[in-house]
Structures are given as structure tokens and as C-alpha cells.
């Protein structure tokens, strides 16, 4: 198919349709409303289900119900709306049904603002709903990658009977880039050994997240954990830039990752041997590649649009072997490449945080910016 100029949010909606989305449930919230708006026209046109629910709670529980039938289902929201969905998300995870949820993140906490941010990383990757449950989280950094990952998200959710979240920020949602859409996948009857699609001529199935008997719940939790081991072994994705001879490595995902790419190119032009690792799956996290890099590079710099959340995952993989520095912008502020270039200069000059959490020294460095 030829490339067309697609707006991020609309591209996500169309990519979901082409991946076989059968039912969409959502509630409007900026900066992702274009997804819902686009699907409100597109889904009925194709004879598929579109429901604007009464709230995010309604939407996620409709997703839960529809997912139990084995249909390809999705909801989309933005930070405060996703927080409202957390109970339903945990139920979906506990019931082991596949569902896709897109979070176009905004500045927070609280009502915050509608500007681009990555501050829901921990909620998506480490927390969110209650209970022990794993979830897959994909983080695109461009419109084309968002399209590609939407297709993948449905496949992964279905393969592992797991929630697959796609997290991005409003800048990717609002930007336009040339992109190629995949072919339209035909809607096929979805037959699994678990879905509740009418028990004619077969034994009745029950889908639930209730395990009144604690040992049974423990068995269920171990089943989820075992499935997660498979995901960790098979589904880690990331992109490397200039890592072959790198002495310093930046780690950044989504928009922060692509801003870092500009800084890395500028530093390379000055002869500084710096590379970039951009995680595409932030859950499962590319611990192994960072572990290997930690054995041969001098230092890491983590850049995020939050107060340093993924930073903990990088440190976990590095295990104290080399310094891991942090630079972030938060609250809806997007860093410019020259800010990250200045950090590369600092690190290349060996000015590392010693005896302090690197996030504390970062806060000290930010004082002149914040106290304006």
C-alpha cells in the first residue's frame, strides 16, 4: 500500500480496524478523542460495534464482557480515564481474557493537563489494578510504529490471553507522518478453548476472576506467572541506534527516545561515542540487552518525560556496575534535543552523580529551570 499522511490518533484507530477490531468501547478525553471520533464513524460503516459508554468504568467493563466472547475488543483513554479503568483491568487480567487498551498519556498527577507526558509508565508496567497480574505494554515512538504495534497488540493479547496496553503521549497522537497501513484482515469466527460464545453441543464454560478457595487462586496466579515467563522469553522488542562502538548509552522510550536520537546524532557529529537503546516493549522490559551493555559501556543516561520511573528498571539491569544518570522533563514539558546533548557532554566529561540518587542530583541541576 502507498504511504499516506496519517495523524497518530486516527492511524491507531484505522490500524485497529484493519487488525480485526470487532467492538470498541470508550469515553472521550483529550488528547485521544480523535480515536473514538474516528471509530464512531468507521465501526458502524463496517457493521461493527461502537459504544460510547457512560464513563470509563462502563467502557472497560463492556470491554471485559465482549472479550469473554473471544471478539477482538479495545478501549482507549488518557491518564485520568485509564486510572478509572484499573478495577476492570484487573478483572480482565484475573479472568485471563485478551483485551487491548491504548493510553495517550498526559501531564499529571490529578487532572493535570493535556500536554505530552510519560508519567503513567509505572501504572502501566508495574502497577495499576490490584493483585498479581502481568500485562504486555508497547510504546511506539512514531505514527508508523503505532500502526505496526496496534496489529501486534491484538495478536499478543490473544496469544497470551492477557491485557496488551499501548502507551504513547499526545504528541504522537496529534502528529502527522507518512505511514503505510496494513491490508484489512478479514473478521473470522473466533474459536478458542475458553471463550463463552454459546454452549450448544459442548460443555458449559465459565469465565470469572473469582477463586474463593485460596489454593485455587494460588494455582491461577502461578499459571499467569508461567505465561509471563513465555512472554519474557519471546516478546522483548527494542531498537538500537549507534550501539556497536558506544561508550555511553541513552535509554529512552516513545517521544523521549526519539528526542534523544537527535541529541545522539549531534553528539556523534562531535565525535562522542554515544548510542541509544529505545525499548519498544516496556513490559516485557529489555533487561537482558541492558545487562549485556552494562558489561562494556562506561555509563548510562535514562531520559523520560516523568520524574524517573523507567530509570528503576535500567538500574535493575545494570546492577551497579556503571553509573546510571537521569534526565527528565515532566508535567507535559517535552525536552529539546539540546538539553539531552548537554547531559551527554556532562557524562562524557565524567561528571557522574556519586553517593546520591541520580534523580536527586538531576533535581538540583533543574533548580534554575524550575525556579524561573
Amino acid at each position, binding site marked *: 500500500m502507498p504511504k499516506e*499522511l496519517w495523524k497518530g490518533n486516527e492511524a491507531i484507530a484505522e490500524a485497529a480496524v484493519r487488525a480485526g477490531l470487532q467492538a470498541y468501547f470508550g469515553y472521550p478525553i483529550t488528547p485521544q478523542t480523535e480515536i473514538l471520533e474516528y471509530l464512531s464513524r468507521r465501526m458502524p460503516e463496517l457493521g461493527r460495534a461502537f459504544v460510547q459508554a457512560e464513563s470509563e468504568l462502563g467502557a472497560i467493563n463492556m470491554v471485559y464482557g465482549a472479550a469473554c466472547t473471544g471478539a477482538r475488543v479495545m478501549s482507549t483513554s488518557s491518564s485520568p480515564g485509564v486510572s478509572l479503568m484499573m478495577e476492570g483491568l484487573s478483572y480482565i487480567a484475573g479472568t485471563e481474557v485478551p483485551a487491548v487498551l491504548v493510553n495517550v498519556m498526559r501531564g499529571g498527577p490529578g487532572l493535570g493537563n493535556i500536554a505530552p507526558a510519560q508519567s503513567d509508565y509505572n501504572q502501566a508496567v508495574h502497577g495499576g489494578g490490584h493483585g498479581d497480574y502481568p500485562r504486555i505494554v508497547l510504546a511506539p515512538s*512514531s505514527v508508523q510504529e503505532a500502526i505496526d504495534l496496534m496489529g501486534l497488540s491484538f495478536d499478543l493479547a490473544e496469544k497470551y490471553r492477557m491485557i496488551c496496553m499501548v502507551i504513547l503521549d499526545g504528541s504522537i497522537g*496529534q*502528529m502527522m507522518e507518512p505511514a503505510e497501513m496494513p491490508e484489512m484482515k478479514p473478521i473470522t469466527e473466533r474459536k478458542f478453548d475458553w471463550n463463552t460464545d454459546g454452549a450448544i453441543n459442548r460443555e458449559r464454560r465459565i469465565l470469572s476472576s473469582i477463586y474463593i478457595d485460596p489454593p485455587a487462586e494460588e494455582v491461577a496466579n502461578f499459571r499467569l506467572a508461567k505465561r509471563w515467563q513465555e512472554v519474557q522469553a519471546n516478546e522483548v522488542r527494542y531498537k538500537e541506534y549507534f550501539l556497536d562502538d558506544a561508550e555511553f548509552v541513552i535509554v529512552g522510550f516513545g517521544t523521549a527516545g526519539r528526542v534523544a*536520537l537527535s541529541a545522539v546524532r549531534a553528539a556523534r557529529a562531535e565525535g562522542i561515542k554515544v548510542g541509544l537503546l529505545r525499548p519498544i516493549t516496556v513490559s516485557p522490559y529489555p533487561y537482558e540487552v541492558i545487562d549485556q551493555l552494562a558489561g562494556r559501556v562506561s555509563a548510562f543516561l535514562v531520559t523520560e518525560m516523568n520524574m524517573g520511573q523507567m530509570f528503576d528498571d535500567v538500574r535493575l539491569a545494570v546492577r551497579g556496575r556503571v553509573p546510571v544518570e537521569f534526565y527528565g522533563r515532566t508535567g507535559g514539558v517535552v525536552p529539546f*534535543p539540546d538539553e539531552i546533548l548537554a547531559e551527554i557532554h556532562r557524562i562524557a566529561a565524567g561528571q557522574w552523580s556519586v553517593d546520591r540518587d541520580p534523580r536527586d542530583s538531576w533535581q538540583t541541576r533543574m533548580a534554575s529551570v524550575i525556579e524561573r
Partner: protein
Amino acid sequence: MQKEILIAGFGGQGVLFAGQVLAYAAMDSGKIVTWIPSYGPEMRGGTANCTVVVADEEIGSPLVKNPPAVIALNLPSFDKYEDLVQPGGVLIVNQSMVDRTAKRTDITTIFVPGNEVAEETGDRRLLNMVMVGALLAAYPILSLDEAKAALKAHLPAKHQKLIPNNYAAMDKGYAHAKAQMEKVAA
């Protein structure tokens, strides 16, 4: 190679569409491009801007602090972005909406009476195309023909009748900028 063009003005002046024409032209000429609007709770009459990044490799940052080329359609945009244009860069100013001359001497500032030129062409709403024409004269990251072809290729059928006027507006903006550049050079 990665080059950025920032277009700023009031909402309703055609800021976003001007950027889209450049983005389509870049895409059709085989380049990699990102178009990104400033988005916020703005309404018509508020400020609007967008950035178009054109590159021949994967685009890094969609935003840039010091763009090499800026189109300022009103005084607040002129005031804000004159300081931010990269040294050696280009600033195209809508002279119809500003009441001062350029402060900086290390960039090329071109004044085009965009509102008047657009009205001469028959429609004041053509301001954005006048300014795109002027930009491409001073900052030929794409040719004027590529921009025209993109407009024709991507304008919906019901708007195709507007093409001749849009072309005329681009041509006039281009000619204005060329004439000024020659005057400076002479």
C-alpha cells in the same frame, strides 16, 4: 539531515494547513516528514503553531528550540520567534500584521505584506499560501512546483476549483521574497 520549519500565527490564519501542504510535498518527493501542531485548549483567534520536520533519515525530535526557518503571521509570533531562529536561518514575516522592523542581523528576515497580497489574489484566506511561496524562495527545502503538485494531489475534489488562486498566491509570495532577496544582495 533534519530541517525544521515552524509556522506561527493566530488560529484561523491557516497555520496548520500551510504546514500540511509542506508535509505532503515532502512526503510526495520521497522525504521523511513529521508535522506536529501545538495543541492545547486554544480556540479560533488564539495562537497556533506547527512544526514541519523534513529529513532523509528516521526523524528524531519532532520539536526544536532553534528552528532554521520560521514563518510568523502576526506580531506576537514575530516577537517570540525572532529570537529563536538559528543563526543564519530564515524568518518570513507577515508585514501586514507587524509594526516594526527586524532586530537581528545574523538571520535573513523577509517581510511580505501577506494580507494585501492575498486580497490582491482574490481571497484574504490565501495568506498562508502566499507565505509558503515566500518561504520556499528563501528556504528552498522543497521546490515551489513540489508544493503545488502536493496541493493538487491532496486537496479534496470539491476544493479543486480553488487551485488556480492558490497557485497564484504561492507565486506572488515567492516573487515578493525573491525580489527582496535580490535587493539585499545588490
